């Protein structure tokens, strides 16, 4: 009986964690900032519906923006999309952590989204916004 409770409390904590991240219209996958996993892409959905814009935005109803988070520690394997420089910086960080910062987990490939909406004169506008969706993360 205790374990389910513990698990329930654990779930509540996770939900609470997700809830606190749930600013109107922005959801992430909740465990992105806790686990010590390696640099990778995490789910982050921006919902136009929850932002109350569906009177103006015809399509889409939201989009997956994603974000990058995770550790960039030496040695970095190929999946971490790192550069020689990043490997060098990670090595030097090990020897001088107060001087040289850690290598950052950042987007290395981004793509555009298109948004179809009404403007104030009821004209229909199609706008392409570049660099809005993370396609890949890496250590840099």
């Amino acid at each position, binding site marked *: 009986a205790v374990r389910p409770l513990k698990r329930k409390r654990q779930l509540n904590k996770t939900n609470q964690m997700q809830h606190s991240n749930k600013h109107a219209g922005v959801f992430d996958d909740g465990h992105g900032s806790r686990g010590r996993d390696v640099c990778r892409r995490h789910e982050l959905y921006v919902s136009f519906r929850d932002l109350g814009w569906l009177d103006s935005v015809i399509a889409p109803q939201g989009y997956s923006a994603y974000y990058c988070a995770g550790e960039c520690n030496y040695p970095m394997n190929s999946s971490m999309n790192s550069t020689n420089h990043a490997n060098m910086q990670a090595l030097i960080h090990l020897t001088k952590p107060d001087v040289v910062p850690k290598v950052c987990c950042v987007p290395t490939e981004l793509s555009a989204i298109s948004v179809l909406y009404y403007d104030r004169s009821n004209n229909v506008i199609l*706008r392409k916004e570049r660099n809005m969706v993370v396609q890949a993360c890496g250590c840099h």
Partner: protein
Amino acid sequence: SGHRLRPPYVFPQRRLGIHERRDMQREILAVLGLPELPRPRASPAASRQPASAPLFMLDLYHAMADDDNGGPPPPHLGRSDLVMSFVNMVERDRTLDYQEPHWKEFLFDLTQIPAGEAVTAAEFRIYKEPSTHPLNTTLHVSMFEVVQEHSNRESDLFFLDLQTLRSGDEGWLVLDITAASDRWLLSHNKDLGLRLYVETQDGHSMDPGLAGLLGQQAPRSRQPFMVGFFRASQSPVRAPR
């Protein structure tokens, strides 16, 4: 404080106040390049708005999405990052006076064009139904920009495009009006006037309506509209707030 090793990417966990949420939404809109406040809830008048432009733009939206996934971009779309359709329109006809050439004129409000956008292409789209008189003949449809109107004489016109078709043809007629964009970028607040003429093979002027060209009286999905394709001429500088 640097000594107590905080998890490297924990974000401050606190609820945003009402004003902060409103500011946050405004910032998200700015990042998306959208106008500041969403359009007010659709008024009843909006339901009588032409549906032709939204339907066309929805097709462009899907084509742009395909373009992102490597599909062939439709014409004009590949070089544009903004497409605007204009429906706010006033329509004027001169079709009753038998001596003058007949024409149909369309006025468009271009005030919503954002600054810093360069026109890559512009089209005027009007739907043509099959026309029976005269039967099975060639029609020449020409489009002009009304540059300057005069009370005592004909307006100054600037030729834009000419299309030749058969009286029995049906479908969307697309007229290239890109050449008019030089002027409209200089004077946003002046309505753009487009004038349409139809002539038969032997040069007689014809009422565009009789030729099957539908104006504002057409069903909502077939009303004429204008489309502008734009490219941002410089990367938008986001003012610090």
